């Protein structure tokens, strides 16, 4: 049945995206973003990154790392959501299978694009990651597992397109295991940084996985809705049903993330002085708008209210909820990286040089390269929609 569907789709006469103006406008803008970002990236490469980025000795990671995390969070979340249908056999999730897996690959590639411009010597990494591995390094595990994850996801996609379910399931399982391993290691990069109290502890790896599932759901709703809008097609019944299921999972994940956030604040306020200072900077200091307006309101409260008030059947409200979440979660990642740095590591030495909060403003280079990551994500998404003709392989 599935194979017939694939053939039907592959042999279909109509390509729903051909000739649509909105498609080409969006594609043109995305390509433009990527080109501009590449120019800024090349400039950073020539001038030296530390000279053109807003980073300092005290805040060595900023917007680019936050954007990278955002993309890999999305990718991992999409992979986990895809596995519900592909690996664990929940049929309701099958219509989303190929788009989810494809977008998961797209997101990790967007992440790689951004991190390429953050790493000072990315080519050395390709060499020394293999010939001089450090098995105690979270970055080594994250990088290695994400490369494996990308390969497994590509294989999963190929097997899904060929309707080789058994192999797709095996590749999907391997991908989800690598993805969770890689992503929790990304969380552990922060969680194992003992001198940064805002991050330190087992919370980070767990939080990263929970927020990945939430963002994966939001991204899936977001891109599926846009795909159907661009194609100007009504959503098929099974796809609508899958979207409803994803919507419910999204609501659950928002509640879990709210729970995580509340306890992070409560425990942080009774922690050591640096952690308390960082938490207060987030609650009522320079990052209060980011936290309350974007993280809390846009990222969690508003989408939850939309989902609960309008239910899970209205695709437009699902889309608005997902858009709100995506914006909110981007700020969550940015705040997580930056607020972790604003209290100097030598704060408790009570020296004049490190007596106050540090500040960070992203440079134009960082902003443009980050925007280029979104350009990559959009152009690959559009190419995918066109190439795979709207991902209709498992609709029935």
């Amino acid at each position: 049945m599935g194979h017939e569907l694939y053939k039907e789709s592959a042999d279909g006469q109509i390509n729903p995206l051909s000739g649509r103006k909105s498609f080409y406008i969006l594609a043109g803008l995305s390509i433009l973003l990527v080109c501009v970002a590449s120019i800024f990236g090349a400039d950073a490469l020539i001038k030296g990154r530390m000279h053109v980025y807003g980073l300092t000795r005290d805040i060595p990671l900023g917007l680019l790392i936050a954007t990278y995390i955002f993309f890999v969070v999305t990718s991992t979340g999409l992979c986990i959501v895809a596995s519900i249908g592909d690996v664990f056999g929940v049929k309701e999730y099958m219509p989303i299978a190929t788009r989810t897996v494809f977008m998961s690959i797209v997101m990790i590639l967007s992440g790689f694009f951004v991190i390429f411009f953050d790493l000072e010597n990315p080519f050395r990494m390709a060499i020394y990651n293999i010939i001089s591995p450090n098995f105690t390094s979270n970055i080594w595990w994250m990088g290695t597992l994400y490369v494996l994850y990308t390969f497994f996801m590509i294989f999963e996609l190929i097997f899904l397109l060929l309707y080789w379910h058994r192999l797709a399931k095996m590749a999907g399982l391997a991908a989800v295991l690598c993805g969770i391993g890689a992503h929790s290691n990304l969380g552990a990069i922060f969680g194992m940084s003992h001198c940064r109290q805002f991050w330190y502890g087992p919370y980070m790896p767990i939080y990263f996985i929970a927020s990945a599932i939430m963002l994966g759901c939001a991204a899936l709703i977001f891109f599926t809705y846009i795909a159907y809008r661009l194609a100007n097609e009504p959503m098929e019944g099974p796809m609508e049903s899958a979207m409803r299921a994803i919507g419910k999972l999204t609501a659950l994940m928002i509640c879990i993330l709210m729970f995580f956030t509340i306890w992070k604040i409560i425990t942080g306020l009774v922690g050591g002085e640096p952690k308390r200072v960082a938490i207060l900077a987030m609650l009522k200091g320079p990052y209060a708008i980011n936290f309350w307006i974007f993280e809390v309101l846009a990222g969690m409260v508003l989408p939850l209210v939309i989902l609960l008030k309008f239910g899970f059947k209205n695709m437009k409200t699902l889309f608005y909820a997902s858009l709100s979440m995506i914006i909110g979660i981007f700020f969550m990642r940015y705040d997580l990286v930056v607020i972790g740095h604003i209290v100097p590591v030598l704060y408790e030495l009570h020296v004049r040089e490190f007596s106050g909060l540090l500040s960070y403003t992203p440079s134009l280079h960082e902003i443009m390269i980050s925007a280029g990551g979104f350009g990559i994500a959009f152009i690959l998404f559009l190419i995918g929609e066109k190439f795979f003709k709207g991902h209709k392989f498992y609709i029935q």
Partner: protein
Amino acid sequence: MVDEMRRREFLKMGLTITGVFAGGTVLSVVSQFDKVFASSKDYRERYPYKPHYSMVIHQDLCIGCELCVKACAKTNHVPEYGYRTAVLERHVEDAIGQKREFVPMLCMQCNDPPCVRACTVKATYKDKKTGIVMMNYDKCIGCKICMEVCPYNARYYNEEKHAIDKCNFCFDTRLTKGKKIPACVAACPTGARIFGDLSDPEDKVFKIVHQIKQPVWVVLPEEDTKPNVFYTKGVLL
């Protein structure tokens, strides 16, 4: 009278231990002696470096002239935007008498360095012979994770070297070229920085660290990185 004097001494010691005068980071004095005792038997077995390069900073001898910073920059070609060593300033408004003191900082050459654990490709490593935390500049991928996890803010990215740079006790620029002490130690006009070998019982550094009469501490002991840079105050031994 005797009781009153003892009480005062006791209170003074208490203030020193809790760090009121030493910046909240005092580790030493008898109660926690084992933690700072750098060469107990177990310690020597675990960290068998020879020479075990180490430094003691006599904090109240530092006058904040920053000649050490300048000498370091000149010797090791440190660019203007970076530093391998710094002299920080602490101002204690409520203190009686002297209200200001200086805290020289550099890489602590930790025996359990978080940077070495975190480095993706072993570009930073603990030298097996000397215990110095070294950099292999050619390997550094510039992920900056070592800067993230260093509790002492001892690292910076050197755009000219295309790698992270840090203090190595002038190993490549002086110690392997016949000089006995790093540039900062040589430049210090007051002798606030004492450099030596922690594995040699006759060495001055060894003697300072292995006594209990005068407080010796490390910066941020709660990080448990087992630094090889120690701090002390008071009358020179």
